[in-house]
């Protein structure tokens, strides 16, 4: 046992939440240590999640751009392409990410320790290094940001060979000919659309009646139609009763309605569960609620006031890296008595399906539940010159306003660059902008941002009609 060390803040986990928590603490002049059990900084986001999946997605998009130009290039993707070829840029991307994160931590004076952490008392964290040595770290404040891992259920045994989860899907040697995706959340839909675009025969099965049920249904239907055009199939409202490798060449999924779905590989993406078992929470006086989650308040503070939790380990869907970063910053700001701000109310949701989906604020259904007759302006990308030029007409931007058609309540977008475009809406929402702002603003031409103006004009038309009707009445 090494002698103990004292820190103002001990952060467990170096994913988006942990990193931002550590940097926030260090910027406030505190002595901070960041503990990570994996070899590199960044957590699953960098090594098995966001970065690798988006790198593969980028390859799929490049392929799609080539396909759009099929009058110039004649060709198709080889189905037996090794995955390493499709992920050829991954090592560079990960290394660059690692470098910048390590620099950022070093620049801010954050101490980084590689090892596994567990609580031994409310103020003590035991660090076990890879060689088995242990050290006790004393902490004024503890931030737990250990992330999450794919959920597993007994009916679907994941062997990481035929039946894979989102941690192992990219370790396949070859692009499979067919893939069944279990689940309808962001991870399931992102991989389903990426693999479909790469020519894999994709079948998505989910219990819910619609994929991405927390998103605007009109927006989701655009994604759904897009995937079907790529040859993808949806079996929705279906329960899987059994999954087994047939021992020959297929993974066989049996559904409750008697249907049997066979594919070469299966991706199980039934949500994520928090990494909390190894933390020894009881030693610090913490316990889990009936859902198996660690209860926290709006700032991530647990019942032990100096212990906070942030990011995916809180188990709040959808697990977004941007939300996790905000959780980390917020937790440490609260712990140090710094202003917390209200930006957490306006974190955009970005889903990297093909086409992309993004949302901020209230959608049509949520607005209708709160207001009587909210207005919705639509801008299909077919009406946007940039959409026509790039061939990315598969898109729709929706602006949701209050019944007067003036106050912006939310923005939902599906289509190319949706996850970038959403930030215009985010700024407008944060500034409490009037819808006319989009009409008075001159956007560059041709750009996708023009969709804001088109949707705002749609609302303007509806507003006038409503005003005329009101006058007539």
């Amino acid at each position, binding site marked *: 046992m090494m002698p103990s060390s004292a820190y103002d803040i001990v952060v467990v986990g170096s994913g988006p939440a942990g990193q931002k928590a550590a940097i926030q603490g260090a910027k406030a002049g505190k002595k901070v240590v960041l503990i990570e*059990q*994996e*070899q590199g900084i960044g957590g699953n986001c960098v090594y*098995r999640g966001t970065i690798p999946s988006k790198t593969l997605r980028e390859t799929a998009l490049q392929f799609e751009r080539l396909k759009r130009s099929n009058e110039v290039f004649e060709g198709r993707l080889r*189905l*037996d392409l090794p995955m*390493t070829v499709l992920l050829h840029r991954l090592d560079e991307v990960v290394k660059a990410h690692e470098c910048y994160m390590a620099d950022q931590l070093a620049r801010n004076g954050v101490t980084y320790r590689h090892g*596994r952490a567990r609580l031994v008392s409310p103020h003590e964290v035991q660090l*076990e290094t*890879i*060689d*088995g040595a242990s050290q006790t770290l004393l902490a004024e404040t503890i931030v737990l940001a250990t992330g999450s891992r794919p959920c597993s259920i007994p009916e679907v045994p994941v*062997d*990481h*060979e*035929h039946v894979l989860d989102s*941690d*192992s899907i990219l*370790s*396949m*040697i*070859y*692009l*499979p*000919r067919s893939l069944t995706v279990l689940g309808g959340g962001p991870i399931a839909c992102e991989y389903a659309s990426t693999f479909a675009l790469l020519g894999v025969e994709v079948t998505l099965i989910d219990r819910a009646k619609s994929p991405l049920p927390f998103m605007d249904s009109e927006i989701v239907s655009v994604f759904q139609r897009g995937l079907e055009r790529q040859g993808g199939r949806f079996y929705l409202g279906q329960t899987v009763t059994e999954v087994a*490798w*047939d*021992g*020959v*060449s297929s993974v066989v999924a049996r559904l409750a309605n008697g249907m049997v779905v066979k594919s*070469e590989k299966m991706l199980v993406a039934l949500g994520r569960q928090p990494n909390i078992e190894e933390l020894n929470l009881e030693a610090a006086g913490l316990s889990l609620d009936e859902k198996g989650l660690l209860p926290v308040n709006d700032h991530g503070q647990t019942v032990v006031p100096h212990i906070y939790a942030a990011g995916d380990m809180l188990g709040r869907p959808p697990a977004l890296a941007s939300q996790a970063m905000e959780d980390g910053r917020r937790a440490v700001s609260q712990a140090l008595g710094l202003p917390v701000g209200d930006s957490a109310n306006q974190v955009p949701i970005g889903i990297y399906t093909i086409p992309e989906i993004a949302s901020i604020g209230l959608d049509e259904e949520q607005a209708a539940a709160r207001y009587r007759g909210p207005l919705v302006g639509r801008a299909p990308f077919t009406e946007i010159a940039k959409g026509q030029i790039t061939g990315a007409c598969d898109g729709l931007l929706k602006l949701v306003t209050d019944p007067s058609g003036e106050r912006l309540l939310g923005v939902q977008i599906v289509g190319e660059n949706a996850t970038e475009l959403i930030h215009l809406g985010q700024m407008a929402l944060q500034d409490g902008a009037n819808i006319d702002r989009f009409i008075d603003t001159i956007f560059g031409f041709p750009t996708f941002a023009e969709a804001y103006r088109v949707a705002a004009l749609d609302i303007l038309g509806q507003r006038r009609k409503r005003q005329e009707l009101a006058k007539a009445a």
Partner: protein
Amino acid sequence: MSGELPQATTPVPTDPLEQLLIERIRKGAIELPLLPQVASRILAMVYDPDAEAAKLAALIHQDQALAAHVIRIANSPAYMTRNPVVSLQHAVSMLGMNLMSELAFSASIKGSAFKVPGWDDEVKGLWHYSLASGAYAKEIARMRRFNVESAYLCGLLHGIGRPVVLQTLVALSKEQGTTLSKELVHQLLDGYYIQVGLLVADEWGLPPPVVESIGFHSDYNYAKTAKQECMTTCLAGRMAKHFLDPEALDEATLREHVVFADLNLYPKDVDALLAHKDKIRAVVEAMPL
């Protein structure tokens, strides 16, 4: 080969047999075992996404001895399914194509590479080491979420140079009319199995991750495209050594190796891997020489 091993200063060999061995390696005059045709086609099938189970069964059928052998293995405790396997088609459907490919490939190479009359115990030891390495490689890959499919072959074949060096030494000693001491054999196997293994890999046209695992399993930092496979193979080999002869490589020494840290395996993970001993034993016993 993607990486380059560091150039070590090789001492001038004092033993005439070693000199002859070096000369043969340099001239490429080592008599390499032929990859049996069936094994070669099975290997192609493992890496062929269009391969079908029926083709595999038909392929194994071509070699009656191999077919019988595979059915016997399929019925061994390591693989036995609920009902006894009575036909090759049944074996393929019960065990799965990948596992059948592994079994058939392993069974077919042992007859060609692992045959050195008069040195049965050594060859048996090398064979068990190969099988245990392959089995451990799969468990390590599964734990680390690396590719499980290619791990077995990397583990199984990384020491393929050893029986070939042994065959060569036995042939050389016969030619020279000298006696081979076990000590010298072990020393030369350790010294030359990688070089000879790479010659075998070239001759057999083994897939790139397997070739790198042969060349760089003990110096995995030099591997460029298959470092994970090389690290996995390095650890699998060490675990196999410990499993087969815990006195020669005790658990404390095994745990000291840096490859555990490089694979980010904590003591608890190592405990979990070591707990697979019964499973590994069953795999080794299922396929005797």
